[in-house]
């Protein structure tokens, strides 16, 4: 039998990428296209759904042309930027407004107002997550409130809602001409509209947010055939869909409770598999759906999102001009042996997990005339390591699960100084897989699993290979544990600084 391949579409915040993977989980082709970022007002971030759909079609067609025989590609999986919200006309297929992106903060006032309602407790109780503008439900509500006639048209069943995977699947399967209107359970769990136990739209939550049920997609497992893509140069079953961070968890083969991955990009996203148990959180991590295989129970995860990780290095480069490329931060940091007593808290627009303090603002603490740009570079890298420790501690408190090792991916994992610091700060081995494209690999795994390219998750686990490992050194780990309260104090100060 000829080798069989799986196509993955990674619909991300800045670009749409189409990749083909072989049965060994190795990437054999990739095509990418960036889309425009619209910033119509301060705090508003929008994407054009039509442009993203066009880029999806184009890159998928190109990458299918890159493989020797497109007939060997047997399934399509999708991973998508989470919580980005699209509403469109089911007859014309045109969006009623541009997509509201996950970084968009326009729902802040709406969320404050909703959270103050006496019945607001139902949201956390039912959806598993506290009300926050981070999720897609409030964005949908904003569109219904602000786009002319949107609410009445939605109530008449003329409009459809979806996050990016829903929008793409609908278009791939025919759009106005019989398009399938579905979402996967991981994306649905990020709306605040789904009962996190039954994995169904919850009537009380729909009433709370005032959302017409007619416009919602059907919730489906992450792994399982969702429809047939007819809009590409060949028909393919769409057999998997996951939010991007859940896709990375899947691509990192974190299938057992306790296994965790952290993606270090602009921000950092740490997810830990908690199995079939939904963990009630008290310490600042989020309970979320990890994935669901068709016919199997839902698997849950704890999530800790940090807004600023690589973005702080970019600031060192673009804002301060201390380095000319992101990788040079390590060179600069290695000019000194320690942080010289300097701490940088990158609360550029508040702090997410585990603090959830929107008012916090960034600070540099501990400046003396001894501190050089080398110390500052080291403090910048350490900030990402300390924030990982904050999140891991919160998760350990919530789940009681130990962390055997942290699997990492993303651009910052080529930074050895940072990776060793993370290992020492967590006193846990940090391991990097051979395939860095974990988001798209996760989407490919989901789709390939559904159509039998791989027999089970154990087959996927066998594809995972370590490309590097950073082992904690006991004396450094002890020293960092002793130093940690200083970081915590800097965080407290950043919250106090931003307080009204």
């Amino acid at each position, binding site marked *: 039998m000829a080798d069989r391949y799986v196509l993955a579409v990674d619909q991300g915040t800045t670009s749409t990428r189409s990749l083909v993977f072989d049965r*060994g989980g*190795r*990437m054999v082709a990739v095509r990418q296209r960036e889309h425009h970022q619209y910033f119509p007002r301060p705090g508003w971030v929008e994407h054009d759904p039509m442009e993203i759909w066009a880029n999806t079609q184009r890159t998928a067609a190109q990458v299918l042309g890159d493989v020797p025989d497109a007939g060997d590609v047997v399934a399509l999986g999708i991973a998508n930027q989470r919580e980005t919200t699209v509403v469109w006309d089911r007859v014309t297929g045109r969006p009623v407004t541009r997509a509201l992106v996950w970084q968009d903060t326009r729902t802040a006032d709406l969320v404050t107002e909703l959270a103050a309602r006496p019945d607001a407790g139902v949201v956390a109780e039912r959806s598993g997550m506290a009300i926050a503008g981070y999720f897609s439900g409030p964005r949908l509500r904003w569109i219904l409130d602000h786009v002319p006639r949107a609410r009445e048209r939605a109530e008449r069943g003329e409009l459809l809602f979806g996050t990016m995977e829903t929008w793409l699947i609908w278009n791939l399967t025919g759009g106005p001409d019989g398009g399938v209107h579905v979402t996967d359970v991981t994306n649905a769990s990020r709306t605040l509209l789904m009962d996190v136990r039954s994995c169904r739209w919850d009537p009380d939550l729909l009433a709370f947010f005032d959302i017409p049920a007619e416009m919602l997609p059907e919730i489906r497992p992450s792994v399982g055939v969702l429809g047939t893509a007819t809009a590409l140069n060949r028909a393919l079953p769409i057999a998997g869909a996951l939010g991007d961070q859940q896709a990375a968890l899947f691509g990192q083969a974190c299938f057992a409770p306790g296994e965790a991955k952290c993606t270090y990009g602009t921000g950092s996203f740490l997810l830990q598999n908690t199995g079939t148990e939904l963990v009630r959180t008290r310490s600042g991590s989020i309970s979320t759906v990890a994935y669901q295989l068709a016919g199997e129970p839902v698997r849950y995860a704890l999530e800790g999102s940090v807004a600023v990780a690589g973005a702080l290095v970019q600031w060192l480069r673009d804002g301060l001009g201390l380095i000319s*490329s*992101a*990788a*040079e*931060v*390590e*060179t600069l940091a290695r000019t000194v042996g320690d942080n010289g007593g300097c701490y940088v808290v990158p609360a550029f627009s508040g702090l997410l997990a585990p603090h959830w303090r929107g008012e916090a603002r960034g600070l540099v603490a501990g400046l003396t005339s001894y501190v050089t740009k080398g110390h500052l570079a080291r403090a910048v890298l350490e900030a990402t390591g300390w924030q990982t420790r904050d999140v891991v501690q919160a998760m350990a408190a919530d789940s009681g699960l130990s962390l055997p090792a942290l699997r990492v991916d993303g*651009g910052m994992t*080529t*930074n*050895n100084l940072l990776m060793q610091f993370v290992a020492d700060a967590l006193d846990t081995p940090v391991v990097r897989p*051979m*395939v*860095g494209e974990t988001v798209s690999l996760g989407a490919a795994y989901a789709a390939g699993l559904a159509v039998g390219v791989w027999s089970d998750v154990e087959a996927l686990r066998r594809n995972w*290979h*370590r*490309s*590097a*490992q*950073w082992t904690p050194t006991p004396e450094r780990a002890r020293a960092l544990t002793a130093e940690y309260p200083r970081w915590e104090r800097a965080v407290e100060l950043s919250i106090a600084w931003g307080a009204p």
Partner: protein
Amino acid sequence: MRWVTIRARDGLASGAVPGTVQSIERAAAILRVVAGSGGTLGVTDIAAAVGLAKTTAHSLLRTLLHVGFVAQDPATGRYALGPGLLRLGTSLDVNELRARSSNWADALASRSGQAVRLATLAGTEVVVVHHVFRPDDSAQVLEVGTALPAHNTALGKVLLAHGAAHPPELAEVRAQGWAAERGEHEPGTGAIAAPVRAAGGLVVAALGVSGALTSLFDARGVPRSLLLAMVVDAAHAVSRELGHGGG
């Protein structure tokens, strides 16, 4: 009339000196004009300043653009000195090198089934800049920062062959574009490495696989052809990533 002065000093009106390469002289004149103009001149002004036909100046500028010695403002079409020129005097940052090579190094390890190392020369030693484990999940230790001898490792031979001294015994390495190590460094293990070049063509690093002698070479000590091709291709890919034209 600033460019008139430039023309008097840097132009080609007096003609080329015999025995020199005319197009290099012309390119140098163009670079001086571009450097002196502060990014304010388009092709017509530059051609006039150096006394060349516009089509000739244009083709020289396209070449300089291609190698990164000039940059062009897409909106105005005007030329400024390029990033490649500014980087000429400085060596490539090793952490930048790792970041830029990472995807190719991962792919090489994954396809070859061997450990991958990227190294640069530091004096008479070779320093490992990037290391990807052999993909068999056995216990391995990250060797980034480790120094290896240059004379008896494949990585070292590649770097010495293309270094300032380029010893005659390594002429073959330079000619064939790769080097082998057959147990000279550690008994039973070997390596195959190829040069990584930066924008100007200078060899800045060596990329190679290492593993058991029997998995890298046949009974006569000849590198397994598929493996050798993977190493050379990966080194070319990293070179392209660093802006080395055409690979």
